[in-house]
């Protein structure tokens, strides 16, 4: 197509083949601006998330909660907000938190929760007494199966190679059955499904989960019989934060990762929907003029 022909195109025609970089720019703005102004959007808590929240809320003081970090840096933006919200909740409930990872990539992410949530907001909590980082161990679902019967063979030290028996909170832990709740974050393999199959079902231990939005539909069938609750994607995190704010009003004006993620989500969705509608309007104008092209993925 020569430049001369380009000039003869009508505005509508040119808009139909709008430079995709313009769309990119809109998406970038839609994501960045809400982050910069720190906007938050409340999400009404759905029953499946509320169930998870209620379960944690119902734990008596000193209950043991195992948090398994079964995800990597690529899905961290989606998962981390729910981990933070849940850790915050567990800390409020004065539960003892045991952090571990079935994914090698989860190893470093446990540190992020400790440095990002526990140390600044709960300075009274003591490492080894109220929370502990057990780190990553290889073995995938085999690891889960193993620690269901024998915890300390696999975990003889914590993530910093300090002997496990030095920590008071590890005293009576011999198997996964000693935990009051296990929460797996991730939803990939190994993940929530394996925790249900190899720990929750055989050991009759309550399992909760937090997973990516993409993984959630595959896990819904396990609720409520095998999963006490499930947080799906950024929305799940925001819903959990909402429940947290209702129960603990002091967090009303607190920056919540999930809720601010939801603002970017909503704006970006609106931008994409706008472009789809816009494209169709252009298309119908052109069709009225009889200038359209067919074809879609070869399926007719």
């Amino acid at each position: 197509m020569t430049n001369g022909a380009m000039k003869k195109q009508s505005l509508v025609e040119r808009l139909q083949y709008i430079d995709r970089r313009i769309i990119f720019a809109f998406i970038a703005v839609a994501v960045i601006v809400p982050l910069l102004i720190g906007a938050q959007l409340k999400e009404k808590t759905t029953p499946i998330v509320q169930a998870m929240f209620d379960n944690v809320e119902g734990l008596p003081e000193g209950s043991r909660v195992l948090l398994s970090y079964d995800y990597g840096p690529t899905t961290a933006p989606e998962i981390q907000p729910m981990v933070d919200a849940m850790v915050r909740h567990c800390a409020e409930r004065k539960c003892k938190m045991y952090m571990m990872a079935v994914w090698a990539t989860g190893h470093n992410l446990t540190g992020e929760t400790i440095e990002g949530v526990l140390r600044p907001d709960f300075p009274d909590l003591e490492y080894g007494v109220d929370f502990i980082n057990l780190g990553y161990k290889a073995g995938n679902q085999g690891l889960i199966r193993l620690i269901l019967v024998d915890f300390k063979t696999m975990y003889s030290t914590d993530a910093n190679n300090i002997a496990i028996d030095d920590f008071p909170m590890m005293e009576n832990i011999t198997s996964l059955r000693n935990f009051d709740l296990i929460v797996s974050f991730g939803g990939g393999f190994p993940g929530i499904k394996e925790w249900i199959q190899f720990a929750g079902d055989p050991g009759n231990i309550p399992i909760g989960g937090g997973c990516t939005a993409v993984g959630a539909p595959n896990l819904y069938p396990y609720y409520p019989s095998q999963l006490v609750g499930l947080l799906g994607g950024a929305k799940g995190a925001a819903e959990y934060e909402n429940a947290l704010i209702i129960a603990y009003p002091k967090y009303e004006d607190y920056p919540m990762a999930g809720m601010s993620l939801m603002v970017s989500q909503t704006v970006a969705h609106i931008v994409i929907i706008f472009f789809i509608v816009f494209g169709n309007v252009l298309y119908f104008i052109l069709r009225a003029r009889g200038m359209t092209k067919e074809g879609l993925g070869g399926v007719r």
Partner: protein
Amino acid sequence: MKRRVPLMMVFVVSLFMVVQNFVPLDEWNWIYQFLLDWTMIIGILSLLLGMWSLWKVHTQKIKRKSENYGYSFITLSGLILMLIFGFFPGSGGIENYWYRSFFYYIMVPIQATMFSLLAFFIASAAFRAFRARSVMATLLLLAALVIMVRFVPMGPLSPIVSDAAGWILKVPNLAAKRAIIIGVGLGAVATALKVMLGIERSYLGRD
């Protein structure tokens, strides 16, 4: 010799793997575990082949001074540096500072950023493809819209939209995925069988 032996090997090994599934005996399970271990080790050894190819492609680019050959230096130096860090003597493997730093500050950011480019591409693809050109395209478009509109606050309409989205995800979505999976399952079984029987032998080359 060049083709018959490999084809026989495929048949024997795959037949064992199939039959193994029905035999719970220890000895069989033991061989099965061995075979799986072996394929894994062969896979890692084959990486040397990849290294060689990578090395050759880039050294040749440099030698021929083909377009953008300067960047080949970057690839090769990244490769060599990472290999040195990875096999650093006395480091006991991969736990040394440089290896980890290269992973966390080079690989992880690029990887995550490549992945996040999808946010842009999904938008541009939606704009271009979701046009009501035909009945099928319209269905595709409407289904996507219903799912995406969940995020738009619409007051009293919101529960209806979220129910509709939930239904689409739970019902037609499940049906189509099941149909595809059954088809894929059958096709995969057929292909595996063709490989076993030597009908499908393209992977062995022709000469």
